[in-house]
């Protein structure tokens, strides 16, 4: 309740809409009023949480086991004295997943700087290369090991999907990394990468939201960050208020969705069995 500005603006918008409604609401699709209200509620929930995070508010976010697995993998690579391979997907920075992949890369780079393990990041887009280099450089600086950073740890292979997969496979077979991480947007090459990683006996950790590729990662990798988990992990690591606030806002909406489901089931059951005069399915049908 502390964010006065937020409540003021929300209140004003609600009030104006109320006035408009009372005045006879010209030019409004009345059938879609439920949708309009839903959107308003959801949008303001999101905004509230983003603003809360921006003003320095702290949320609890549950630990994500996959991130812990990353730490173990880095530890094991150090013990074995072998490098770590990090693949940030095959798409450009306009994909949210690539952005998330680069954020997680920053986190991994911090650990490799701490443990003095070598890191190898082949990329398939030149813009991703720039972003990934920046992320690594920053991490090594923060850890106080700029001497360990060299630009070539992030290197461009090729834009083409299968050629890129073949190139990464070559690196895996030659360098035998102890851990392979695949975090970003993947298509069919997911399978080729995970299979080769498996055959060299590396610990494999994957993170992606590409629904069709998740099964291949789950069966071939030791740990997989699934969809939203991946985004939440990156939001958590990036410490950007709009991302963290977004995670929390979406959680609240999710809770509301669950409550709505349960509530609708109860009403539906009553409606069908006892003839209570309210059909919730009509309310939820928006044309």
């Amino acid at each position, binding site marked *: 309740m502390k964010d006065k500005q937020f409540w003021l603006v929300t209140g004003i918008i609600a009030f104006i809409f109320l006035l408009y409604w009372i005045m006879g609401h010209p030019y409004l699709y009345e059938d879609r009023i439920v949708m309009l209200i839903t959107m308003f509620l959801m949008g303001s929930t999101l905004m509230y949480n983003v603003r809360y995070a921006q003003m320095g508010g702290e949320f609890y976010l549950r630990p994500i086991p996959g991130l812990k697995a990353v730490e173990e993998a880095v530890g094991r690579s150090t013990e074995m004295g072998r490098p770590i391979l990090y693949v940030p997907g095959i798409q450009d920075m306009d994909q949210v997943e690539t952005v998330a992949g680069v954020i997680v890369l920053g986190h991994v780079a911090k650990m490799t700087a701490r443990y003095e393990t070598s890191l190898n990041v082949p990329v398939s887009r030149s813009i991703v290369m720039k972003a990934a280099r920046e992320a690594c450089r920053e991490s090594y600086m923060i850890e106080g090991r700029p001497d360990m950073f060299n630009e070539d740890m992030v290197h461009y292979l090729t834009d083409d999907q299968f050629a890129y997969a073949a190139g990464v496979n070559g690196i895996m077979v030659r360098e035998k990394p102890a851990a392979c991480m695949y975090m970003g947007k993947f298509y069919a090459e997911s399978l080729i990468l995970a299979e080769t990683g498996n055959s060299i006996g590396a610990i494999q950790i994957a993170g992606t939201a590409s*629904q*069709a590729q998740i099964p291949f990662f789950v069966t071939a990798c030791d740990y997989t960050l699934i969809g939203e988990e991946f985004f939440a992990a990156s939001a958590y690591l990036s410490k950007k208020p709009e991302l963290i606030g977004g995670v929390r806002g979406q959680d609240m909406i999710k809770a509301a969705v669950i409550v709505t489901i349960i509530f609708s089931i109860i009403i539906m059951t009553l409606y069908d069995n006892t003839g209570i005069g309210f059909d919730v399915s009509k309310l939820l049908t*928006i*044309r």
Partner: protein
Amino acid sequence: MSKIQDTFLKIGSIDRRWIFLIIAAVVIVPLIFPVGLPIRPTDTTKNVYDSIEKLPAGSKVLLSVEYSPSTRPENHPMTISILRHLFKNNHKVFITCLWPDGQFMAQDAINQVAKQEFNKTYGVDYVFLGFRPGNEAVVKGIVSNLRKLYTVDVYQKKIDEIPLMNGINNFKDFDFLFSSSAGFPGTIEWVQYASDPTGIPMASGVTSIQVNEVMPYVQAGQMVGVLAGMPGAAEYEALINQKGSATSGMDAQSVAHLVIVLFIILGNVSFFIERNRSKKY
């Protein structure tokens, strides 16, 4: 016992090119020497068939073709079977494409079914509107004002001069939608921007990869049914009683699946042997 285990481990580290060869063989052999396994339609396929069967004769059906040659083996047999079913029941067919290559696929299907098999008249029994780029915006355009989006058909003929287009102004003027889809844009966009906002019933034929993304829509009743991949197409061919390329591929499909399942099992057996051994030492 350990000898058997050794053999398993040996097979486990086989060069993968042998596996490639096996897969090639198990696909080619049944294609050349078919067995003709019986085909059993699943419920979701039957629902599509029933809902088209229930349409009164002369219904206006929008058929959207959104796949490219890369998924042709899965989608094309569906398009063909649906067209056959629609023409057999004397429905009017309107064909649009959300994918540029969809035009070629649709043209092939029209040549085969409308022209050769049923001898239907263009502009009276069917219209080929063609492709417009813009993804979901095209769907939205068809829903709001089809005539603004399509001023000419695919042959550059003016829409106003086509008799069948009389009285067709937007999506609500159709009775049914079938989308033969291989990804984005496709079935999901049709559900979101066309079928859900207007309530016009729709069904779809999708590639196997996509099935899981559209199943919740089917279960929730937002779509009447779905044809799932090449087996779905084969089931539809069985239902309309006209065998096509999907049916002939089913033997190869069956054998290949069995072999892959076998691979998974064998692979895991050697995985367990290996794990047990490394535990012992």
